[in-house]
């Protein structure tokens, strides 16, 4: 069989053409194109679907455009906390990491859990420790900081604290 295919997504939401400039749309499309091309190149050369999935996702994780890796949103305490998972259809093997703050590319950690551990999901500090032991790149949490996402957090928190008539009770 020489047939291959790759499909990607970069998140779903309530955006419309009126809220996104043509330049923004083109930026997103260019990054999607880059991720697809990287995955396709691997598949065309006989690489496994897992390799293609990890490579395509890494490109999107490294981009501040998407809510993953470098473009992650913030928790209420102003940190970036990431999750990732991967599953192999051939043998139903699977791996995941949850609530990690220092693994540069969480999808690579998920793959390590899948291929080099007896577990399916690792979380928090333990997952980061495992990733370090597997030789994956770790970064300080501030690596994931982006101004746009931080402002989004602050705007949401301000909205939540906005005084209403209910605050007058008692």
């Amino acid at each position: 069989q020489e047939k291959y295919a790759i499909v990607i997504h970069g998140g779903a939401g309530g955006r419309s053409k009126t809220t996104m400039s043509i330049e923004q749309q083109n930026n997103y499309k260019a990054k999607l194109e880059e991720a697809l091309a990287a995955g396709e190149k691997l598949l065309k050369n006989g690489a496994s679907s897992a390799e293609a999935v990890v490579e395509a996702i890494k490109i999107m994780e490294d981009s501040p455009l998407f809510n993953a890796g470098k473009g992650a949103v913030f928790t209420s305490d102003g940190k970036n906390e990431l999750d990732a998972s991967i599953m192999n259809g051939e043998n139903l093997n699977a791996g995941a990491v949850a609530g990690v703050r220092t693994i540069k590319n969480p999808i690579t950690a998920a793959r390590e859990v899948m291929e080099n551990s007896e577990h399916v999901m690792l979380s928090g500090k333990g997952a980061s420790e495992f990733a370090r032991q597997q030789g994956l790149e770790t970064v300080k949490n501030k690596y994931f900081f982006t101004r746009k996402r931080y402002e989004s957090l602050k705007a949401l928190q301000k909205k939540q604290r906005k005084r209403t008539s209910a605050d007058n009770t008692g």
Partner: protein
Amino acid sequence: TVGCVALDIHGNLCAGTSTGGMNNKKYGRIGDSPIIGAGTYANNKTCAVSCTGHGEYYIRLGFARDISALMEYKKLGVKEACAAEIQKLTQLGGTGGVIALDANGNMAMEFNTSAMFRGYIKSTGEKEIAIFAEE
């Protein structure tokens, strides 16, 4: 959230999902992305699935695994199965999307929001990159 599903020339499927979670989340909240069967699933007998959206709903539906079950037990095609599952999501009050791919290279990109960043390439040369629902 970002995700990818792929079929290699050896006939094997794989699905992956990665996310920064929910803005302003507390209490160590975790969504569907790292939960196998909710946000991510793959089985060569049926399909590979990656989801994006309001995670709590995807977890409650066992979303990704349910798509596989619809294909395995109800014999739905991948696009029909994804559309049916998005319908369940909508009825429950959830929003989001899904990408999926079967072992024959048939794929689906379904969502109930106004946009989903998405794209695909097949060995046939067929290719698409799109953002909005009307594209």
